[in-house]
Structure formats: structure tokens, C-alpha cells
């Protein structure tokens, strides 16, 4: 079943579109679930709630307001009826890119709504979550999650891809139990194709 809420990341913030055909209760539940899982993922961003084709009773609107207040550290929450479609872009082409110039060690966690570039390794026990792409000039051995806002266009690229777990959008992949040649550095890129996470050699 299609989710009654969809998220897009636009230049000026995050656009949340509510499905006009969905029942209010489903919208409510989906929103609540999303707020819980997002924690402070959208910190500092503007949140646009697109209610263009919906009609809500005042108490329903109140409920929505109460739920979306749960997004932590969101800069502004704006109700809009503009169809922002033409302006929305998949985040991995736009959005901010964060540069991290060190190795991430066990227990360290990076969570950004844009792209993340790391010069260094992601050690086992470290975690990187990005709304967009993750590019690592080093080895990935920890957990990475690209396209965490839902973008299935996101990808993960590294000089050596040996993650504990690799997630893109809502897909999760584990490396094979028997890992191959541990010594050689072969840049690889992981992305979603036909609903599955694929890994291919990255030719420079």
C-alpha cells in the first residue's frame, strides 16, 4: 500500500505532501511514525506541508499541527498550497554537502540531511546517515545509510566497501559472509537498481 505521506527535499527545505485520497487516520499514523523515526534528522531545515489538494476539518488540522511539532529543531513549519513540484529535486543532486576530514571510529555517528564526504575510514561500530549520497575516500567498515530521507537515487561510494551493513533509502544489504580479497583497494559504488541494492566496481 502506498504511503499516504511523501517527502521531497527541495532547495529551501523539506516538502511533505499529504495524499488527498488517503483516510485522515492513515495520514495521522504515517505522520506520527515519521516524526518518531526522524528524530532530529531535519534539524535546521524548513518544513513545508503541502495541503494543496486536501481539505481538513479544523480539529484534524489541529491534530496534524500537534504531530508535526514533534519534529525536533525544524526551523520553520509552513503550510502551503503551492504545488512545489517543479522545484523539488532528489537530494543527491542538490542539498548541502558535508566534508568530514577524519576517520570515524567506533561509537561515532554522523547524521546529515545532505550529502556526506569523508576523507578517512568509517570503522566498524561507526555510523553515517545521510539524506543524500555518501562518498568515502577510505574504507567503509561500519554502518552507512544513504538516502535516509527516502531518496532511492542515493548512492554510496568508497575506496573499499566492507560495511557491516549498507542501507539506501529503505533497502538494507549485508555483505556476503565470506569476504573476498581483503588487501586490494577496489573502489566500489552501491546504488538501487530494480528495487535492489547493487554494488559495482567504480572505474576512475
Amino acid at each position, binding site marked *: 500500500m502506498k504511503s499516504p505521506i511523501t517527502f521531497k527535499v527541495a532547495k529551501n527545505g523539506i516538502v511533505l505532501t499529504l495524499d488527498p485520497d488517503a483516510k485522515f487516520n492513515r495520514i495521522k499514523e504515517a505522520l506520527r511514525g515519521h516524526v518518531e523515526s526522524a528524530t532530529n534528522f531535519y534539524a535546521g531545515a524548513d518544513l513545508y506541508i503541502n495541503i494543496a489538494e486536501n481539505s481538513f476539518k479544523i480539529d484534524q488540522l489541529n491534530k496534524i499541527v500537534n504531530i508535526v511539532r514533534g519534529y525536533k529543531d525544524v526551523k520553520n513549519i509552513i503550510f502551503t498550497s503551492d504545488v512545489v513540484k517543479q522545484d523539488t529535486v532528489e537530494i543527491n543532486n542538490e542539498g548541502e554537502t558535508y566534508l568530514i576530514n577524519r*576517520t*570515524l*571510529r*567506533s*561509537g*561515532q555517528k554522523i547524521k546529515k540531511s545532505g550529502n556526506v564526504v569523508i576523507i578517512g*575510514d568509517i*570503522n*566498524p*561500530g561507526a555510523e553515517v546517515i545521510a539524506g543524500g549520497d555518501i562518498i568515502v575516500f577510505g574504507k567503509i567498515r561500519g554502518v552507512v545509510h544513504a538516502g535516509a530521507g527516502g531518496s532511492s537515487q542515493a548512492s554510496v561510494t568508497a575506496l573499499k566497501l566492507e560495511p557491516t551493513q549498507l542501507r539506501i533509502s529503505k533497502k538494507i544489504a549485508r555483505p556476503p559472509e565470506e569476504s573476498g580479497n581483503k588487501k586490494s583497494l577496489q573502489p566500489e559504488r552501491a546504488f538501487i537498481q530494480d528495487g535492489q541494492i547493487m554494488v559495482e566496481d567504480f572505474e576512475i
Partner: protein
Amino acid sequence: MAGKSLVITSGKGGVGKTTTVANIGTALAMMDYKVCLIDADIGLRNLDVVMGLENRIVYDIVDVVEDNCRLEQALIRDKRHKNLFLLPAAQTRDKTAVQPDQMKTLVEDLKNEMDYVVIDSPAGIEQGFKNAIAGADFALIVTTPEVSAVRDADRIIGLLEAEGLKNPEVIINRINAEMVSRGDMMNIEDIIEILAVNLKGIVPEDNIIIVSSNRGEPVVLKENPKAGKAFKNIARRITGEEVNFISLEDNSFFTKLKKIFSFS
């Protein structure tokens, strides 16, 4: 001239922190440095037992912090070396009995009297750990060739760097040359590759360590055991000497070690 303080820590328990502190401290004292060992593992003190000084404790670190006694009164002089002292932990209290800033002052005071202050950290990353590292000028991390110990060491390095203790160095304890050569144990290269820090020493596995801990006689006091030699070498490296890594039996292993040494 003020001395230097170093903390021996690991994250994971049971990798040999206390043994390392006892041996490095004794080895430094044997080189005629004035040394004080601090047991920061309040509530689970062990260093006194490993040093064979348990029955001489009157005051402890919490007594000093709470002004029940003067610092000099709590220091226990080692029975073998007159220039080696131990500041024992309290056994009947817990980690919250001391605060990091109190620890810092304490270590500063000791540094005025000593050449080296060696702090034995408890396992874990909570307050006991924070106390232990508060007064340290640099850190040595003890790990064993196990994935879990290396993982914890990596976490600790990250926490130390966040606390401003840059460039910690690692001691790999309990290496079993035979198992490494069979490929059954993580080798040194793998460990250093993940941790990306300098190697300070390699200590071979040796049952005599257990015997010496039980007797309260650090293994460096003996002439023969390789583990004792390894700890002595670490102590010499701490003083700034350049000492080659000891060979652990077979040659292929030694070549690997040399390789690491050449790029570290």
C-alpha cells in the same frame, strides 16, 4: 621539573591494563625514575594486589580527595623499589566519589614530585574512565588480538581524541605467535590498520603473567620471560628511547613486524 602523566586504558575489561601498569611502572622504577602508580578503578581495586602491596593500605585516593589525609600519607612505597609508589583506589566506594577536576589536581600535585605518574583506568567509558584520563598527558591503549577488544580500543581512541588526548598509542597484549602464524588470530598489521595509531609494544602471551599477578610480583622483575622483556621495552620507549620490537619465535612473523615498524 614536573614529570609526565600517562593513562593506561582499553575500554574492554580483562585485556591486561592493570598488569601493564604494574609492569611498566616497575620497569620505569628499575630504570631509576621516580614513579607513582594510581589505581583509578575505585570500587574494584586490583593494582595493589598485582603489586603485592594490599596489606599496606591505610589511606586511599578517596581519603586524599576528601581531605582525610595528606597525599604523602596515602602513597605506599613499593617493597622492592624505594622510588616506586602506589596510590590505591578505595574499595568501599564507587566511581562517583572522585570528580575529574579533583583527579586533575591530584595528578598535577604528583607530577611535581615524580618523573612518571601512571594511571590505571577502569574498563568502560563512564565516569571512572573520565576520571582516569582527566589528568593524563598522554594515553596508552591496551588491546588483545580479538575483534571485540580492537573494536573497543577504536571507540576509546575516538573518545580520547574528543577529550583532547591526541595521538594515543597502542599496546597489543597476549599475542600468540603460533596462532597468528596459523592465521587463527588477528595479526598486528590488521589491528594497526584499523586503529591507525602508533604501536607502542607487543606483549606475547605467557602463563607466567598469571602466576606473577597472583604472587604480587610483576613479571619484569624476572630476567627470562619474554613478556617481561616486552614490558621493559615499552618502558624504555616511554622514556624516549628507540627500541626494536622483539621477535616472537618464527621468522615470517618477524618480517611482518619489521614491515610495520618501517612505516610507523
